């Protein structure tokens, strides 16, 4: 019966109730988005780093992966040493470079030299992967190689899968000649996790990129990724410490460390999200308090009559609290939908920022985040209804009836 009466009370002023609900929905949507934003970037970054299960990144000493153009010398020995460690089950060396495309619509592309069997940079979505080299030695210039390219590469270069193109390195701009060139068959299209969506990229065998860059790069890599088993944080940390002590030319960064560094860099985002979330919670609170107080003030006579006909104080308290909860509950549900739509929209805008990895998301849906936001709003709705509910339940019956009679 309390539910029926609460619903009836809210229906009494449908426009007012709808507007209040809409206000709460907007506040709830903002709160949900802020909760999603504050946790989403970390979640997204973590899942990005762990996409292929590599928990360690080995970069040139004192740098972050691909933070500079620095490379690691003595790469083959380092990779061999890592592979010899029984707790490290996979090592993926990568060499990054910018290659020229003499017969394409785009002048150059970012290239990743990878070992296809262990690479952790892309997933083939169309066509086939780069075949493993027949002999893992230095290539000759005449041998044709293979590449997986990004969708942006295909769209901007005008090439299609199956095309054979030329790539060059060491371009002399004045003579318009390249130090080294190679024919490349585009075998497939892939999604590159760490490369910004707007950047054309191709993945070639590591040996091909090293050959293109010249003899100085035969034993270099930009980065190596390592997978540790078991993958618990203690094992990863042990492996990281081992690399730090045995390989003085590199810096090993674990996923957790990288996430901590990103969290530090993006802490202002979380603070902003916290402040905006708190503001939206406050707005929702005030909306519910205002509307329920208004409703109680309008119904002083009715509430006095309810008390006169035998409704206990606690009954009136429950009744008014229920009204507040129904209002905030309905607003929150609407806000949940609105929040998801706006998060998706905002995410698509933010993802277009240049320089961000294609797989990075700002707003990540998680039931935990939604539950946290809903719980906050539930408590807020409960507290918001508490003051008017208490006032209604403490109404002096005879005085309220007298004042009603006077008009």
């Amino acid at each position, binding site marked *: 019966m309390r539910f029926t009466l609460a619903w*009836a009370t809210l229906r009494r002023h449908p426009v007012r109730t709808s507007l209040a609900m809409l206000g709460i929905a907007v506040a709830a949507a903002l709160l949900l988005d802020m909760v999603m934003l504050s946790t989403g970037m970390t979640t997204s970054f973590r899942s990005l780093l762990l996409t292929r299960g590599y928990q360690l990144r080995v970069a040139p000493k004192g740098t972050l992966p691909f933070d500079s153009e620095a490379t690691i010398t003595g790469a083959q020995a380092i990779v061999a040493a890592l592979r010899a460690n029984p707790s490290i089950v996979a090592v993926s060396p990568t060499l990054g470079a910018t290659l020229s495309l003499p017969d394409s619509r785009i002048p150059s592309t970012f290239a990743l030299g990878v070992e296809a069997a262990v690479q952790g940079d892309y997933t083939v979505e169309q066509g086939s992967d780069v075949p493993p080299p027949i002999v893992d030695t230095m290539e000759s210039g005449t041998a044709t190689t293979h590449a997986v390219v990004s969708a942006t590469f295909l769209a901007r270069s005008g090439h299609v899968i199956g095309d054979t193109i030329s790539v060059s390195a060491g371009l002399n701009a004045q003579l318009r000649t390249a130090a080294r060139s190679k024919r490349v068959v585009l075998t497939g299209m892939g999604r590159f996790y760490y490369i910004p969506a707007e950047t054309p990229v191709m993945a070639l065998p590591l040996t091909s990129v090293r050959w293109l860059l010249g003899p100085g790069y035969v034993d270099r890599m930009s980065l190596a990724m390592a997978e540790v088993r078991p993958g618990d944080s203690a094992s990863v940390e042990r492996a990281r410490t081992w690399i730090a002590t045995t390989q003085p030319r590199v810096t090993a960064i674990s996923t957790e460390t990288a996430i901590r560094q990103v969290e530090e860099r993006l802490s202002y985002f979380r603070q902003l999200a916290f402040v905006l979330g708190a503001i939206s919670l406050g707005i929702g609170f005030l909306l519910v308090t205002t509307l329920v107080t208004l409703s109680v003030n309008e119904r002083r006579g009715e509430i006095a009559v309810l008390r006169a006909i*035998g409704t206990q104080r606690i009954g009136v308290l429950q009744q008014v609290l229920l009204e507040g909860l129904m209002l905030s509950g309905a607003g929150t549900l609407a806000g949940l939908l609105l929040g998801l739509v706006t998060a998706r929209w905002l995410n698509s805008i933010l993802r277009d920022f240049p320089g961000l990895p294609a797989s990075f998301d700002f707003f990540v849906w998680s039931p935990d985040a939604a539950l946290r936001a809903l719980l906050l709003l539930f408590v807020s709705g409960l507290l918001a209804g508490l003051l008017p509910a208490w006032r209604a339940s403490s109404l002096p019956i005879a005085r309220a009836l007298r004042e009603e009679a006077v008009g």
Partner: protein
Amino acid sequence: MTSDSVMSGAIAVPSVIQCEKVERRYVMGDTPVHAVRGIDLDIARGDFVAITGPSGCGKSTLLHLLGTVDIPTSGRVIVDGRDTARMSDRDATDFRLRHIGFVFQRFYLMPTLSAAENVELPLAEAGMARAERRVRVRELLGYVGLGSRLDHRPTQLSGGEQQRVAIARALANGPSLLLADEPTGELDADTGASLLELFAQLHRDGTTLVFVTHDAVVARAAKRVVRLHDGRIASDTRGAP
């Protein structure tokens, strides 16, 4: 006459209400009001009493005191043997729920609930099961002549019909005492007369009725008329039994 019984005709009937030197003062805005001044009044079980007098004479305040929604500043109000000033708010509310029915001048029906739902409210408060409530509501609305208007909302009913719904609501838990504050105040003469006829019917069925009116003609429908003036009983007359 004893302290706990009054004479109704030749038979001694136990009092349902006893007022002893009841005073009630309160402040309205900034103005102190001495609404009830030393009233002594006994009302017998099954009586039909009109409290009348000019506006501001303390009628409604006295009714509130009898209905346990207010307590006297001094003196005692005893309803069904219980001193209202000594009841906790919880006890007084429960007492009203089970023993007292209220009817108000402005009906005070919940506008977005149907007639049946309005009558159902005190039944639900009393903890009656849903199915049982439905049967009781049908019975009560049938009694007040609104058996075919169960699902109508107050706005779809005339003033007289709304007041009948309010009476059905007041009778929901079978109270021994029905208190009405200007029950015909918002009704035209014919509707008011038919409502008084319903009150007479309730009286014949054994309900103790006390109603407040400023209209001397309406007051004549009661068996006993208590006239107040300036917070005191000016006259207490009994009509034909």
